[in-house]
């Protein structure tokens, strides 16, 4: 198994050892099954130890794993009849965001997500999954189309952020994100958002205002990347591991903060270890969400979204006000 992370090494060493014994047993025709079963018990214990006690940084590493499934990997497995739709009808087609129409459980849906590349060449084309304004405007076009034809929208979030570039600023990156927030607030069809990898800042939120918001177990979602936080707060991007912890960016953290609805479990060692199983888990949670939301009227959907976001935040009052007299 290629591409294991450092923190997984004890697991891998045991797995290698077991494989080695197995082939040795076959080769020499001697019975090592007691030893193998002993090691397998130890492996189970070791997996519990390693994957049951992951740090925030370990999860960030898994969220960034080069083999981690992308939006298109999940669209292939979760939806049927997918037709990709391109372009914002104003400037161009941003391949950092993909979207289209499909069926889910035999019902029509619109699905839109950030799209990373699988290799350098594809990453250049897809700008590493960091959208320009036209990407967000394509998402806007597709969600308004979904509203017109009264079908739910599923958003898959996976981005290091909206692209920080000259052209992006010229074409109104801020407005593109802000406009989506406003339009998602008022959309009269169900919106389900699932963070599948990285969820960085306004670039993620721009397709993230939903009736239900779920996160994969090893994804992260925050106001800024751990590296960005470390650089801004402590002037030292090498403190990213510490920032990942301090900033409370993991799925369990966001559940605790009441920002997300459900944590979608991942296979031990991350989504890439079993893509089919992962897709099935997402399908399950998505089905539950859409069934629940299909019972709400247009007004109730908008109302539910209002209440959901209206209540996020923590504050208190002091009585000795020092404001303007």
């Amino acid at each position, binding site marked *: 198994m290629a591409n294991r992370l450092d923190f997984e090494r004890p697991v891998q060493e045991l797995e290698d050892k077991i494989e080695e014994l197995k082939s040795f047993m076959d080769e020499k025709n001697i019975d090592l099954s007691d030893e193998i079963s002993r090691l397998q018990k130890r492996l189970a214990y070791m997996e519990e130890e390693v994957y049951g006690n992951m740090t925030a940084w370990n999860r960030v590493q898994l969220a960034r794993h080069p083999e981690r499934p992308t939006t298109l990997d999940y669209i292939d497995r979760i939806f049927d009849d997918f037709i990709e739709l391109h372009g914002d009808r104003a400037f161009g087609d941003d391949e950092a965001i993909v979207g289209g129409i499909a069926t889910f459980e035999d019902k029509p849906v619109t699905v839109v997500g950030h799209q990373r590349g699988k290799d350098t060449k594809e990453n250049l084309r897809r700008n590493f999954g960091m959208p320009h304004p036209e990407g967000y405007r394509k998402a806007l076009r597709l969600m308004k189309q979904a509203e017109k034809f009264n079908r739910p929208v599923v958003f898959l979030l996976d981005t290091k952020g*909206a*692209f*920080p*570039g*000259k052209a*992006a*600023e*010229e*074409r*109104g*990156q*801020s*407005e593109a*994100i*802000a*406009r989506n*927030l*406003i*339009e*998602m*607030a*008022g959309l009269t069809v169900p919106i389900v958002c699932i963070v599948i990898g990285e969820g960085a*800042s*306004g670039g993620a*939120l*721009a397709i*993230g*205002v939903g009736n239900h918001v779920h996160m994969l177990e090893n994804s992260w*979602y*925050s*106001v*800024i990347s751990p590296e960005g*936080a470390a650089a*801004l*707060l402590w002037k030292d991007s090498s403190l990213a591991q510490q920032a990942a912890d*301090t*900033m*409370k*960016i993991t799925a369990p*953290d*966001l559940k605790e*903060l009441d*920002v997300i609805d459900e944590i979608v479990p991942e296979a031990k060692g991350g989504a890439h270890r079993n893509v089919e199983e992962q897709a099935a888990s997402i399908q399950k949670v998505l089905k539950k969400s859409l069934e629940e939301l299909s019972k709400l009227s247009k007004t109730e959907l908008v109302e539910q*979204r*209002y209440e959901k*976001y*209206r209540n*996020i*935040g*923590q*504050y*208190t*009052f*002091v*009585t*000795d*006000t*020092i*404001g*303007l007299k």
Partner: protein
Amino acid sequence: MLKDIFNKKKKYATVPSEKIKQDVPEGIMTKCPGCKSIIYSKELEKSNKVCVKCGYHHQMNAFERIKNTLDEGSFEEFNAGMISENPLSFPDYVERLEKDRKKSSLNEAVVTGEGTINSQRTAIAVMDARFRMGSMGSVVGEKITRTIEHADKEKIPFIIFTASGGARMQEGVLSLMQMAKSSVALKRFSDNGGLFISVMTHPTTGGVSASFASVGDYNFAEPKAMIGFAGRRIIEQTIREDLPEDFQTAEFLLNHGQLDSVIHRADMKKTLSTVLMIHSKGGDR
């Protein structure tokens, strides 16, 4: 020597900056970032904190802004006592808030309430960059949202003056979600026919630029205000090319179709008043 300069019958005075450091107590003089002149602070206040020499718009605090915009004595503040908690138990956050509270005489980075502009009622929110760089955490999001809801209930317009470095890091994802919170309120207000005027002042960046600031029915800005999503330095590091000098200024945004107008501070109240007046003459409200 200073006496000689002040005796000159000028609206502003200039002296060499090194001289100022030696001779003048801090606060009496202000160095203009626009033309590097040293200006007598009281003179600067008389001209709405706009440099008479070069037109540079010096930063205004929330109370100066309110004084400059609303009819005298018309402002009633809402939720002045709302303060931040420390939801992530972020190291040093409470201490930093306390420090800024003392420094700015504000409880948070936005002042909200209601007042009149030439006798026309409006809800208003004014951000203040002296407090945590005007960054938006739970309190800023909540106060702005409450002000929008007030405007919606009272059927009056909502005006915001933005000045912010973006979302507040120390409240993590809760800060990010304030962008969504203010957006759901703005959308409802807008669907009910509410008038929303956004006035972007220096600086308006990050999560504030990428939410309410950019979606006014009218988007205005002060001259030379820095407005943008990503920081200039980050963009330079990412694309490895030099950016034009006027990049992310109000004028740059105007040229790229992102603003309705760049308005000199001296004309701000009159412009806002005119927009309110035109809207009062017809339509739904």
